[in-house]
């Protein structure tokens, strides 16, 4: 136990306090000596407590336990042999552990994850290999150190051992090391050293972001090599090899190779280069790429949700000179750069489950920031019926999927049965699918979720209720302690009971499970069919053919769909699709004539009454700022459009297929109608006044824009509104600065591998307003850019952390550290003690305790408890009084009798004498009779004896009377 003080200056008061106390002692003169001394001591103690409390006395338990956290770098920059060395090092170090030492392991890369919490040596458990898999494309030593700090126990001496090459790509390791040092944590390093002597790195490919068809331009390739060497350079355009050159590389400088190129088609083209050098140690960093846009006729990406061969609109558009690429939803690109070729995107009858959420975000970004247009055409899978509620695409559209104004809408009811315990990251996926399903439901639809929870058993995580507070429902599902469900019977029974009783037009159950639970009874399945409750099953991580049959049987008998899921990423889409089943109520399938509500440039040249009837549409609600030129007979939007960011979007809630638009196909203005709408949505073409080049240099993206006017003069003082879209589909603003005549530059951080799209709008004097876009891509993670380990950083960390450099022979579990225990402040205890002492002081001074009385009182109490006959005592007293009075009377009578026999002195004297005998004495004597050994008895006897002795010379007559009295008493 160590004692420390936070402000030792207060301790100076100790001596004056003691002096004061003892000097003031004269005031206590009235007390007895012993008491005075006690009070002085109490006061001394009291002052001492108060002063110690003021001085901030703390006790810390010295703990000799040692806890070590190994932070192992598992990023891509670490060569394989060094990864194995790390494992061996940790294994050997664990064997050195003391009996009470604790060791933990974490693996890190871009993030850090704990492999093993600090625990004592496990004699049986041998570390076989590392199981955790962090993000390997980055190295974040700072996060690793911080996680290690959090994982180490507070009450032990602490060390962190970092095994790394020191090439951090993100984060500030030195800061984290300082934080560790401030917490008395020693930071040791095990450098993983390597050096690539032969590493040739292809640094970048540079090409202008916008070119014209059939105009030549240059593609530049930059290669670095440590030494002079020869190699082959391959150039690819749109992933096709277009050139191979034998090249000579000069060591130590940037080699630049230029390739003249031109493109024949308009649109987006990628260029990548690959350098091949025999003996190159690290081939991952031998490729890089960029892309360019060749301006030409505008192109439209038409995504058809139904069978492609049934599509008739595309042919119509092509006939109207609108270039269309027709694809199914599964071919929709994930790479932002691929969308750059198109000036507008059309989705026709595509449900939300056909694309990923990432793709939806991408669409929203390219519309908002790059100005690409977007049109959604309906169908029975479009808009709300397709599950597009609460998606990024809905944000871009001029209508929202929830109909608020309708008073009577049939509702749907959806129950999820969640058995996700055995699914890897089951809790996470349980939440994700619930979110996906909830997003599709309106606040009037009913939603419920069931699971088997430890320790309670089967229960409703969310009881069946309108989906109003979706956030609370998500929380309820997330917090659940999902257990292993033995059978489906109870949960399905519970779902059936509630669904049967509820008032929804569509009732649906979706079960997600690994298939292990026993199936429900056939009678329950039959009852569900009778109640028109459908059941779909989603089967994950199956245990084998038998579970398939359980879940498949339930789906077949339940009239629903059976999904076998190999990749958990598919789950949210499945649940969107299943939840949309409940939303079929949004479709209105009756013929109606479109009504023109307002003018629109898309409808130019088409008269009000010329529109043929349509046979159905999906209900939706127009947004406030949207234009709604066409509406249905029920006043719902049919055609709506608006500007969204830099782009334009439109929504057509009926369809362009035979199902609802059959009459339109025989209408002579259908092609005009659609081509006008599509043309309206096209992105504006950029002029040749602006030229943009985007490159990546030293982990930073750099954009350079050159601006000239039509005469070729530099354009200065332009204002830019610009954004960059990252590979994760995030959009960040860009700041441009003018760095030369007509030249403007901006930078952005580059952390992820993938394509970065840049869009810039330049405004200037004289109404100059132009738009240009471009971008570049990062081919390999920064992990592959380092040629050698960074010893300098590791040394710095070690110095900050007061640690050692450890090698194979080091003794890791050295206990030579200051104790890390957090001290416990003692002032509360000291203050409480002072209070107590104060009370005692007051008591000692003011309360005069009569010890004799206390003793007597205790004795009486003892006797009284032992006797426990309170009433009898009182009665006895009264009886005794009676007896005495009676004796008195009798004595008088006896005396009278005797008076007859002999001469008597004056009767009055006798009576007086008799009366003088105090009744208390007698009563006391009487009281002492029944008690066995009253302490008063011996006292009475002497006084009685004394009384006897007092009166020997007195009247023998009186003594005779007294005796007679006494006799009468007995």
């Amino acid at each position: 136990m160590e004692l420390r003080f936070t402000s030792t200056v207060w301790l100076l008061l100790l001596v004056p306090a003691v002096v004061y106390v003892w000097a003031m002692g004269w005031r206590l003169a009235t007390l007895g000596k012993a008491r005075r001394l006690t009070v002085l001591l109490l006061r001394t103690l009291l002052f001492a407590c108060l002063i110690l409390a003021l001085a901030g006395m703390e006790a810390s338990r010295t703990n000799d336990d040692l806890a070590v956290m190994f932070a192992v770098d598992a990023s891509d920059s670490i060569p394989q042999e060094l990864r194995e060395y790390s494992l061996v090092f940790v294994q050997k170090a664990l064997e050195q552990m003391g009996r009470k030492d604790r060791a933990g392991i974490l693996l890190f890369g871009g993030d850090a994850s704990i492999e093993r919490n600090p625990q004592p040596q496990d004699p049986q458990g041998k570390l076989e290999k590392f199981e955790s898999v962090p993000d390997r494309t980055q190295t974040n030593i700072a996060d690793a150190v911080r996680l290690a700090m959090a994982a180490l126990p507070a009450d032990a001496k602490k060390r962190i051992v970092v095994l790394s090459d020191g090439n951090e790509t993100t984060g500030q390791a030195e800061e984290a090391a300082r934080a560790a040092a401030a917490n008395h944590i020693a930071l040791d390093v095990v450098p993983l050293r390597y050096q690539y002597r032969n590493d040739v790195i292809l640094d970048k490919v540079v090409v202008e972001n916008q070119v014209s068809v059939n105009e030549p331009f240059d593609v530049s390739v930059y290669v670095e090599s440590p030494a002079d060497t020869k190699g082959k350079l391959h150039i690819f355009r749109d992933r096709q090899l277009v050139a191979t050159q034998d090249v000579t590389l000069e060591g130590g400088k940037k080699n630049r190779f230029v390739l003249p190129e031109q493109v024949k088609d308009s649109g987006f083209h990628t260029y990548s280069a690959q350098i091949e050098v025999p003996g190159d140690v690290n081939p991952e960093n031998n490729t890089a790429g960029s892309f360019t846009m060749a301006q030409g006729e505008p192109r439209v990406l038409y995504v058809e949700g139904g069978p492609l061969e049934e599509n008739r609109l595309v042919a119509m558009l092509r006939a109207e000179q609108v270039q269309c690429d027709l694809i199914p939803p599964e071919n929709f690109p994930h790479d932002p750069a691929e969308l750059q070729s198109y000036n507008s995107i059309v989705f026709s009858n595509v449900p939300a489950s056909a694309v990923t959420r990432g793709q939806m975000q991408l669409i929203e970004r390219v519309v908002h920031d790059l100005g690409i247009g977007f049109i959604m055409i309906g169908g029975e899978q479009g808009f709300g019926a397709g599950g597009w509620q609460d998606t990024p695409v809905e944000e871009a559209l001029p209508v929202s999927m929830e109909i608020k104004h309708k008073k009577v809408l049939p509702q749907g009811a959806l129950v999820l049965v969640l058995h996700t315990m055995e699914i890897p990251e089951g809790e996470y996926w349980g939440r994700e699918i619930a979110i996906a399903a909830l997003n599709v439901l309106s606040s009037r639809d009913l939603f419920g979720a069931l699971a088997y929870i430890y320790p309670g058993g089967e229960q409703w995580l969310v009881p069946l209720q309108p989906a109003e507070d979706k956030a609370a429902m998500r929380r309820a599902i997330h917090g659940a302690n999902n257990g292993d469900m033995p059978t489906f019977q109870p949960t399905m029974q519970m779902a059936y009971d509630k669904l049967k009783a509820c008032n929804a037009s569509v009732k649906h159950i979706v079960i997600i499970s690994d298939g292990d639970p026993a199936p429900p009874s056939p009678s329950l399945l039959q009852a569900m069919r009778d109640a028109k409750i459908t059941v779909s099953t989603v089967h994950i991580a199956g245990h084998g053919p038998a579970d398939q049959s359980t879940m498949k049987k339930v789906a077949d008998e339940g009239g629903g769909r059976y999904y076998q899921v190999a990749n958990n990423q598919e789950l949210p889409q499945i649940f969107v699709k299943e939840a949309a089943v409940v939303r079929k109520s949004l479709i209105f399938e009756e013929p109606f004539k479109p009504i023109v509500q307002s003018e629109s440039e898309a409808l130019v040249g088409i008269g009000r009454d010329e529109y043929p009837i349509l046979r159905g549409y999906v209900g939706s609600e127009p947004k406030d700022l949207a234009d709604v030129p066409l509406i249905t007979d029920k006043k719902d939007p049919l055609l709506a459009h608006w500007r969204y960011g830099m782009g334009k979007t439109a929504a057509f809630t009926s369809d362009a297929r035979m199902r609802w638009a059959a009459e339109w196909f025989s209408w002579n203005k259908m092609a005009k109608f659609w081509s006008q709408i599509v043309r309206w949505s096209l992105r504006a073409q950029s002029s040749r006044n602006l030229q943009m080049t985007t490159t990546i240099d030293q982990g930073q993206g750099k954009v350079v824009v050159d601006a000239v006017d039509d005469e070729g003069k530099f354009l200065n003082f332009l204002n830019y509104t610009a954004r960059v879209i990252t590979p994760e589909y995030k959009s960040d603003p860009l700041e441009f600065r003018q760095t030369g005549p007509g030249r403007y530059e901006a930078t952005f951080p580059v952390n992820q591998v993938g394509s970065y799209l840049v869009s810039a709008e330049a405004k200037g004097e004289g109404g100059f307003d132009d738009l240009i876009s471009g971008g570049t891509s990062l081919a390999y993670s920064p992990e592959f850019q380092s040629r050698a380990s960074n010893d300098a950083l590791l040394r710095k960390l070690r110095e900050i952390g007061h640690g050692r450099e450890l090698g194979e022979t080091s003794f890791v579990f050295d206990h030579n550290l200051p104790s890390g225990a957090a001290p416990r402040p003692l002032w509360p205890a000291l203050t409480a003690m002072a209070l107590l002492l104060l009370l005692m002081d007051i008591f000692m001074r003011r309360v005069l305790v009569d010890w004799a009385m206390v003793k007597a009182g205790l004795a009486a109490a003892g006797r009284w408890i032992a006797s426990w006959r309170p009433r009898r005592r009182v009665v006895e007293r009264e009886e005794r009084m009676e007896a005495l009075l009676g004796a008195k009377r009798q004595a008088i009578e006896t005396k009278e009798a005797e008076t007859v026999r002999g001469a008597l002195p004056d009767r009055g004297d006798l009576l007086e004498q008799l009366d003088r005998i105090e009744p208390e004495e007698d009563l006391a004597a009487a009281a002492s009779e029944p008690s066995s050994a009253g302490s008063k008895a011996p006292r009475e006897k002497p006084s009685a004896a004394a009384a006897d002795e007092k009166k020997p010379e007195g009247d023998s007559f009186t003594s005779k009377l007294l005796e007679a009295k006494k006799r009468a008493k007995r």
Partner: protein
Amino acid sequence: MRFRLFVLIAVLALFAAPGAWSIWGRRASHGPEIEFRVARAWGLPGAQPGQMNLPRAILPAPDGSIYVIDRSGHVQRFSCDGALAACWRLPAWQSGTPTGVCFDAQGGLVVADCHYARLLFYTPDGQFERQFGEYGEAPGQMIFPTGVALGPDGALYVTERGGRDRVQKFSPDGAFLQEWGGFGDQPGQFMRPMGLAFDDRGRLWVADAGNHRLQIFDTEGNVLRAFGQRGKAPGEFDYPYDVAAGPGGVMLVVEYGNNRVQFVSPGGASLGVLGAAGREPGQFASPWGVAVDKDHLVWVADTLNNRLQAIEVDWKRLIEEGRMKDKGQRTTD
């Protein structure tokens, strides 16, 4: 003075009441809790040898050690204090791990490999000897074998679920002898039958988990008794996952849903329960297995707590109580 005394006693009583209630009152509301003492509770969570990851099947060995099969696919033998004595891996475990294991007539291990439709035979120290079983619903095939027990007649009795929930009888070398059961809730049918055990009269007790009941059969498959329903009261069960035979004919049932062990007399009367949900010694979290070793210690596979617990109970009293309760009932067997 009297009044003061009265006040003092009243105040003391007020202070003592909560304490008294906590000792006596709570016990009364929990029903017939059996007195027990936790003799051992050990288990380190983890997937490395010597650690436990959701232990489900346990089997005490004649030498005092205990076999444990857990979700990481290991069969481990521990001393009764938790020191690892042997460890070997099952041939496959990714799809799922066994819940049933027993000794055969030669003292070797028989493991009902649940998700691989087979029985595995090992020597006591882990040498793989043979296996039999193939996937299917036909007699002699199996889908998910959940429990296995050696009968007094030397045959191996196997409970099975997942397709045709039934009990099958095999000769030790895998020849099919008999089957009975079917998916359902009638006596003689099963819904997820799990553990099984023979009592001292040679009757076969089966934990019919999905029906929340126990069923007793003779070796020919005739139903002798089917009793129990879902609930918390004594005599009711909540997903009984395993049965074991104690001394004197008393049978033990571990309840996955009630997180406890229930004791049952040979006549089927409940003799009390022990345990509740929790992490302390004496509490269980979704326990899957129960067994009694040669010293009459009750071992529980405390699955979600990743540990084993060994419990001492007063067998004499239980056996006595069992006899008394059974005398008051008609005996049909």
